[in-house]
């Protein structure tokens, strides 16, 4: 297995909801919207791959297809060597999914109880589960608050808990759908450091991360795919993407403009840049995550 994630002309078309008049006038007409079109990407083990695009570009649909939550309309994809439709169970066994949606937990259960429940869905029970949960709580720095109700956590703590849950089954591949969306700039910065240093650096996971945040993609990803209107416009390292531009010292926004002909929507970019390309320079972050 050369690539951990591999897609071949992966396409998703959604049927558009008809209005009542349309339904009466054209009952058999099938209107479709293409959310993801002929996506071909190959991602190596241990790579931190980012998919960058504005809202509605098709990032989440692509991730959900790879996580087997949505069936593709055409094309195919392999995750850890398993085909996403035929071997969907095996795919789910080997992946972790981290979302920014804090509603994906039971708010009236404690953090630990939440993790225990989700561990059982991954077929981890009793002592195996306890051990893994303690390990993960320590990794994300939530040991002391683990027995408090989830509803009492801050946004940063909720996101840490989402990371712990995403790593419960020690997955080969971790999918992250806009993981810093709900965090303030400082917490987002620390999370980026954690992803780079601990999840990819120490744990050696392959990370597939979607973002609409230019600095995040720029600071974090080994390779970046730019997606717009469901199509991958270009894939490469930051340097490769910039090399195609005539402009001196271009940013990722310029790259986006060059390949899509559109200006990327302006996000709240942090003033300082995450100091954590350390992994590439041989550095590491000893402690757990604190944000």
């Amino acid at each position, binding site marked *: 297995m050369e690539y951990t994630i591999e897609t071949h002309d992966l396409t*998703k078309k*959604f*049927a558009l909801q008809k209005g009542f008049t349309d339904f009466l006038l054209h009952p058999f007409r099938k209107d479709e919207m293409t*959310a993801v079109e002929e996506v071909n990407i190959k991602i190596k083990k241990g790579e931190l791959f980012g998919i960058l695009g504005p809202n509605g570009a098709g990032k989440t*649909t692509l991730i*959900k297809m790879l*996580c*087997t*939550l*949505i*069936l593709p*309309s055409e094309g195919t994809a392999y995750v850890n060597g398993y085909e996403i439709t035929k071997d969907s*169970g095996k795919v*789910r*066994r080997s*992946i972790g*999914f981290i*979302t920014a*949606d804090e*509603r*994906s*937990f*039971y708010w*009236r*259960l404690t953090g630990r*109880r939440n993790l*225990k*429940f*989700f561990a*059982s*869905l*991954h*077929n981890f*029970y*009793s002592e195996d589960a306890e051990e893994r949960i303690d390990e993960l709580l320590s990794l994300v720095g939530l040991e002391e608050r683990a027995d408090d109700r989830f509803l009492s956590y801050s946004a940063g703590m909720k996101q840490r808990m989402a990371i712990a*849950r995403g790593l419960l*089954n020690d997955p080969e591949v971790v999918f992250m759908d806009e993981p810093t969306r709900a965090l303030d700039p400082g917490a987002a910065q620390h999370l980026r450091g954690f992803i780079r240093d601990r999840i990819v650096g120490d744990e050696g996971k392959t990370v597939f991360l979607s973002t609409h945040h230019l600095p995040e993609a720029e600071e974090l990803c080994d390779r970046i795919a730019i997606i717009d209107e469901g199509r991958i416009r270009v894939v490469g390292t930051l340097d490769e993407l910039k090399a195609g531009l005539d402009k001196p010292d271009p940013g990722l926004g310029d790259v986006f403009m060059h390949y899509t002909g559109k200006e990327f929507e302006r996000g709240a970019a942090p003033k300082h840049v995450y100091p954590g390309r350390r992994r590439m320079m041989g550095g590491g972050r000893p402690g757990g995550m604190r944000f």
Partner: protein
Amino acid sequence: MIYKKAFSFIIRDLILATSYKFEFFLRFFFMLFSILTFYFVSKLVGGVGMAHLEPYGGDYFSFVLIGIAFSGYLMTALRSFSESIRGEQMMGTLEAMLVTPTDTSAIVTLSSLWSFIFMSFRVLMYLVIGILLGVDMSNANVFAALIILILTIICFGSIGIISASFIMVLKRGDPINMFFMSTSELFGGVLFPISVLPDWLRTISYLLPITYSLSGMRHALLQGYSLSALAPEITALMVFSVVLVPLGLLSFKYAVKRAKMDGSLVQY
């Protein structure tokens, strides 16, 4: 392994239910009211309609007690599967569950376990209160009642899963739920024997599993019928099970596939 998973769902739901302490106790408290209502109605009705009640021992309160207690399983089945999907969709937890190796049908089934356990506890309370109010179950054939109960849960559960399939695709407006909710009380013999109905309406009763379930349960608990005497009810429930179980599983499999195709698995 499945029992460990089942246990973890039950613990989750028990903690969630008891975290709303006031509601948890209110549900038990108000249960008493419906039993007492029918107790006093039976005092008023007395021996009226004795001919219709004779096959079930002749006492209206005993008849209606079994009716309201065990029809609860149908209501639980119709509600719990679809409500578990809808509840998880609305809470936002469904997606996080579906991305694990646990099968979607297992998630839906196990999510409903707590409702059935709560219902069973409720039925037990109904029966205990009934006995305290004078219902005679001294001849009860408990083994036969358990057989009827298992078949009842299989039938009703399958109907519930078909209902959940509609919810998975349509999100709201499930016709199975509406059909069984509206017909079972009228035609299923919950509050009065079906012999009261005119012949042409009684035909509908024979098409509903609840009719056989309640009839069998009354005969087993109130009159102590043997398994052979209960053969008509048991056979009918087995036929319903043979038809409904595969239908439920197939419809749910199709519904999940359809929702994954539409990308609407977690929409509500």
